[in-house]
């Protein structure tokens, strides 16, 4: 049997879109190819005209997509983790005295690890507030604020529970109290409409390779108050080359070195794809897939679902009679269903929901079909029933 025949009988079902969306829209792949087919247009770094000025075009597209400006306040980084590191460490460097920071149990290690590093260095005291019913109550954040609280970092959408947090209410309160608010939008950017002009965040972080349909290696953030964050990277910007001090003007204030042009081109095309398809249509399809999948899972004995009403296309569950890694292994190798297992880089969530053992996560995208969801649910049923019957016979 050759691999093509095998694929026909057992087609790949990719349900790991909360990690990285796949497949990408054809237009994204074509834009990346187009970007690399011609010399790059790098203002200040070439005498050529090259292809499109992708950084400027993508910044404008981001500003329109997130309803925020000026476009120069959108900064490109490698991904959300890179952006969060730049913002968190840059904010800490700006503060002359140790300060208090608040974060939440829902966070990804991209938030928890930089904050823990600052705490270990004695730069900050850290309060981690709990979630209730999959959400962080804004009142819990308000209650945790101390006299020296300067920073709050929290996720917009949980990568495990799929719950969207009420960042607007929190942002308004923190803004009024002069506390810098960094929002990790890695899981929400592209999935739900976000009007940053209406939400007074200090900075909003996004990544390109998830619901914005870009390729891995591109992400960034929107910052309203660039002065709140000290520059931690210096280098070539293609401008002011005589000056040995890194420029303060946006966006090069936070961008040193040659951009990831193919990544930015993919992000630009991904944004265009969402806009032309319609974010509402994408959201509606994802919602249908997610809730249809949950309906099927709920009927399987021995399956525990951790949030039966997620806002994002993320469903986390466990098969009672089987370790999550084993279940993921079986589903991948025997059924060609690709999921994610383990702690999903969010260890504190798991301490609360599954005793720190981790779980299986299915996550969908616009390109996932209902048939794929049903086939995956049927595979999960077979595995759960088999594991359950074996436990019963032991």
């Amino acid at each position, binding site marked *: 049997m050759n691999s093509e025949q095998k694929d026909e009988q057992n087609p790949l079902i990719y349900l790991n879109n909360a990690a990285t969306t796949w497949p990408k829209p054809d237009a994204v792949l074509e834009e990346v190819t187009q970007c690399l087919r011609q010399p790059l247009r790098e203002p200040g770094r070439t005498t050529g005209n090259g292809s499109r000025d992708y950084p400027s075009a993508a910044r404008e597209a981001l500003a329109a997509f997130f309803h925020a400006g000026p476009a120069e306040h959108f900064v490109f980084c490698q991904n959300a983790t890179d952006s969060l590191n730049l913002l968190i460490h840059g904010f800490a460097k700006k503060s002359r005295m140790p300060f208090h920071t608040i974060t939440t149990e829902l966070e990804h290690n991209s938030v928890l690890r930089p904050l823990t590093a600052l705490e270990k260095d004695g730069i900050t005291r850290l309060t981690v507030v709990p979630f209730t019913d999959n959400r962080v109550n804004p009142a819990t954040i308000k209650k945790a604020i101390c006299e020296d609280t300067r920073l709050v970092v929290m996720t917009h959408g949980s990568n495990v529970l799929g719950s969207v947090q009420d960042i607007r209410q929190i942002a308004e309160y923190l803004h009024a109290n002069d506390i810098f608010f960094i929002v990790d939008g890695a899981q929400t950017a592209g999935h739900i409409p976000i009007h940053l002009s209406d939400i007074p965040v200090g900075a909003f972080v996004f990544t390109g390779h998830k619901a914005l349909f870009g390729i891995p290696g591109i992400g960034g953030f929107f910052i309203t108050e660039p002065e709140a964050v000290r520059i931690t990277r210096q280098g070539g910007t293609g401008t002011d080359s005589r000056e040995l001090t890194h420029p303060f003007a946006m966006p090069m204030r936070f961008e040193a070195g040659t951009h990831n042009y193919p990544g930015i081109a993919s992000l630009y095309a991904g944004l265009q794809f969402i806009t032309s398809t319609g974010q509402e249509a994408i959201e509606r399809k994802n919602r249908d897939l997610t809730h249809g999948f949950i309906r099927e899972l709920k009927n399987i004995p021995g399956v525990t679902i951790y949030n039966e009403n997620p806002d994002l296309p993320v469903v986390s569950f466990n098969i009672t009679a089987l370790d999550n890694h*084993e279940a993921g292994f079986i589903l991948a190798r025997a059924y060609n269903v690709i999921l994610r297992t383990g702690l999903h880089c969010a260890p504190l969530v798991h301490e609360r929901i599954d005793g720190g053992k981790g779980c299986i996560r299915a996550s969908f995208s616009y390109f996932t079909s209902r048939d794929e969801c049903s086939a995956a649910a049927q595979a999960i049923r077979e595995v759960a029933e088999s594991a359950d019957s*074996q436990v019963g016979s032991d």
Partner: protein
Amino acid sequence: MKEYVLDEPLTEGFLKFLENFGTVRFLEQLRKPYFSFEKALFISIKGFVGDSTVEVRYKKDFQDLMGDYVHLLLYYYDQGERGITALKGHEDTLKKKMKIRLDPLPGNGT
């Protein structure tokens, strides 16, 4: 984690042999019959009967001592009952080395 490619597909007979050395779980009703083998402090193996590849995880603390264990399992499987006794002897030696590592005081391991 390491993936081993075997000379021939795994059989249920091999699983019976593994039962002498640890806990075997066998889910035969699946699209592909799945098994796992768990031996505390030593090793865990996952795979499918009929497949020629297995996924092997070594326990971090004794990774260097366990490097040959999979090969020993395969080698002694071919020897039937005699192989079971011989491999248990190897395991005793490995356990002594583990004990010394866990508690490296003079007199231990003898």
